[in-house]
């Protein structure tokens, strides 16, 4: 197998040490950094996301794959030349809503969006509607991703949409919602632009919404 294929396989199985060693090897082989990222790491996370969607693997496997990807990206990204910079897909602001400290799913979305070429502004967890609005105003993202893991905090997502409306920013950004108890029905009910059931779907949803708006 080529070095790029080996990087992809190491990332899929969550082998961080091999992903790091192979990334160093790829640099010494003078492979294009953009190719290492796209054909190695991003391709790997595509496979991982697909298996997750099918219920073949679960969050632990996603976490160790994402960890391997992050470690590998840490090796290769400094070698990106100016004219080789990965095209930025979109700017995405992410956060877990107020009163909710759960962030594993959001962190996975963040890592996969970065891997896919997005600029991610992660506000963390327990984020108030006002902080979301401020971030949209400041960073002018194409997408705002809201995460909630509790039925007790889900109603906060609607508050964020209302605050965006009040601030005159609702039309400036597409809002996606996700988290274990969140559903498509709930997303439509509060007026969100999209629902993503997991990190892999979130990446695909963003790409889908971007192609629609082109």
């Amino acid at each position, binding site marked *: 197998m080529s070095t790029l294929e080996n990087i992809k396989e190491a990332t899929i199985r969550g082998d961080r040490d091999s992903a790091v060693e192979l990334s160093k090897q790829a640099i010494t082989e003078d492979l294009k950094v953009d190719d290492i990222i796209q054909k190695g790491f991003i391709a790997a996370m595509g496979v991982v996301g697909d298996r997750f969607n099918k219920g073949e693997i679960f969050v632990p496997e996603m976490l160790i794959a994402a960890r391997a990807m992050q470690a590998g990206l840490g090796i290769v990204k400094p070698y990106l030349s100016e004219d080789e910079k990965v095209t930025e897909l979109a700017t995405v602001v992410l956060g877990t809503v107020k009163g909710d400290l759960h962030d594993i799913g959001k962190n996975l979305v963040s890592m996969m969006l970065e891997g896919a070429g997005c600029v991610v502004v992660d506000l963390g967890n327990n984020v108030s509607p006002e902080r979301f609005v401020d971030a949209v105003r400041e960073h002018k993202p194409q997408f705002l991703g809201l995460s909630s893991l509790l039925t007790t905090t889900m109603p906060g997502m609607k508050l964020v949409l209302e605050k965006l409306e009040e601030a005159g920013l609702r039309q400036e950004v597409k809002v996606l919602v996700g988290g*274990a*108890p969140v559903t498509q029905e709930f997303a439509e009910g509060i007026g969100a632009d999209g629902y993503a059931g997991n990190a892999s779907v979130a990446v695909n949803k963003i790409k889908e919404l971007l192609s629609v708006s082109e």
Partner: protein
Amino acid sequence: MISNMNSRERFLAALNRQEVDRPAVGNPTSVATVESMQATGAFFPDVHLDADKMAALASVGFDLLGFDTVSPYYSVQQEAAAFGCEMSWGEIDSMPDSLNPVFEEPDEVKIPEDFLDKPAVKTVLDSIKLLRKRHGDQCAIIGKVMGPWTLAYHLYGTQRFLMDTILEPDKVRAYLDVLKEVSILFANAQFACGADVVTLADHATGDLVGPNAYCDFLLPVHKVVTSRIDGPTILHICGNTLDRMGYISEAGFNNFHFESKVDPLAAKEAVKGRISLSGNLNNVQTLLNGTPEKVEEEVRKAMAAGIEIIGPECAVPLRVPNSNLKAIAEAVMKISQESR
């Protein structure tokens, strides 16, 4: 069909799959709402550390909402607080959260000798005593403890624990082995204070881990836990759980409390008559945003499937209107009458 059962009799019969006058109405987790707090003067976050207020708010379930049960442990964080986690106790309409793990390795875990006297734990125990004194044998008191899997999330860290199921499985087993003693200790103390049944909340949910993780890591531990707890138990796991309900039905619990993501008929099929079930009304679409008519529709579906204890799928969102909670028992009674 028998008649003249009081709430406690009905709930215990339903739990044990015995004959009942109608399905029981209960929530093994929490039915606390802001409306109930206003009715009693017992508000979040005070209730988590004040036994009188904890008991007063719990009584609303039986006194006002038509439930056959009272459930005083509202959050999932009393044990984490007792172990010294930094806490955010939340606001009137939010649940408490622990902010930082306190252990790096399983051999660091030592259960304090005065664990049962730690304020967050003692509050639950004292509230159970108060509820028993207040209600006598009229309604069922449901205690609650966190299981070892959930305790590991809070005390060691969810992300690390999940990754360790692949990277360091022996560490996972070691954590479960030591933390199960916390669940057993606290559950038995709750029975000694007068609880009728104890919910074990242990979040090895399908939204996070596969069914093999439950079978390989947690099922053997649950079998030990249920054999050492001095009373009936309900297992609660949020989210997608259908793929592990067969295993759960072998773990020694009397009942499994499941969520709206799982179809009630499929749930019944999965447990093969070994245990009773409670649930599984949708918290957000039905109880928070729906109407009594929507509540009745879902109650009807759960009753048609033979769910023994009808109630919300999990701790209810705190802004749920009490009218929708009252609608649950009203619907159960109405539908029971239809079949007579």
